[in-house]
């Protein structure tokens, strides 16, 4: 009994400990909880700090519209690093991957659908007064 407790319980702390239920061995292995090495956390942390410095530096150089793409690109990269490593989604199950992406997919959908807002001042509509009403 004691050994079984260890395999179910401590299986999480020992990376090799998934011997409990042979029938589901491969399934089990896939779902095993992952202990991330400290070095991975340190590298992630360092990468986040470097990216932050780059984004601050880049914001003081005027590159026109490219500035926005750079700053958002870096922010998305940083978010991905946090999600994959700090939040351990990289080592998560497929269901975790699906759930972790859901919110962001919804977010992209909302942005995509709302992008028609840009086109709304093309045709003058009574009652619609955009801020910069210099229509052609």
């Amino acid at each position, binding site marked *: 009994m*004691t050994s079984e407790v260890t395999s179910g319980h401590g299986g999480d702390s020992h990376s090799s400990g998934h011997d409990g239920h042979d029938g589901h061995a491969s399934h089990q292995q896939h779902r095993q909880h992952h202990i991330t090495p400290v070095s991975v956390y340190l590298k992630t942390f360092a990468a986040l700090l470097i990216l932050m410095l780059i984004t601050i530096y880049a914001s003081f150089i005027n590159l026109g519209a490219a500035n926005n793409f750079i700053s958002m690109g870096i922010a998305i990269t940083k978010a991905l690093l946090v999600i994959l490593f700090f939040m351990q989604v990289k080592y998560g199950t497929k269901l975790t991957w699906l759930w972790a992406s859901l919110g962001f997919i919804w977010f992209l959908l909302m942005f995509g659908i709302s992008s028609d807002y*840009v086109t709304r001042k093309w045709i003058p509509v009574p009652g619609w007064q955009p801020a910069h009403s210099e229509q052609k």
Partner: protein
Amino acid sequence: MSVEAIQPAGHAHGNGHGHPPEQAHQFEDMPQQNEVYVVGMWTFLVTEIMFFGALFLAYTTYRMLHPDVFLDAHRHLNVTLGGINTVVLLTSSFFMAMGVRAAQLRSQTWQLFWIALTILCAFAFLGIKTVEYKEKFDHNLFPGQTFHYFSVGEHGGASETAAFTPEKSNVPQGEAEMFFVLYFVMTGLHGIHVIIGIIVFAVMWLMIKFKHPAMNYYMWVEMAGLYWHFVDIVWIFLFPLYYLIPG
């Protein structure tokens, strides 16, 4: 009547099946239970993405409509303090990741250590944020009756108090106010999340300290960690969008 009574013989406690005490009866095994917990936490985070997402959309819309106003108004924000706060929050996320690791390895000492550091960082973040907010209140930049916008020069926010010279601006008051409405709503909501994080961590710290049996299961700390990393992600986007508008 008892749960044990209706369990198949092999599943009741202490009869040789030997599943860990923190495993609930309805779960096949610990990995399944862990997955359910993680997915449940992510479901909550999806709702968080939804309401923060709506605010980010509002921000994008207004910035698209009034790019010049946003450029002018963002100079009131202090890049140095914002940058320090970013470092503080990223560091706290790292500490929390280490705390979750300590929980997974079942080290009480290290859990207490890393969670305490996380709480300290959270307080530092709120302290710096308070300094920033106070400045905005002092300059009548909090939206409402007393709101009065004025422009500051190119590096207004960066070079603080002493060389503070309000300039006559032709920026429309209402549109500048909208910038600060969004700023206070989004950073304020983020700040509330930080406060909630501190409360959750403080309770967990005490429960670990006094060896509450529930804390034998590391998933509680791990889920608090997921929440905290999400708060960090929100700030990762808030920082460039408010403090680093190029132009």
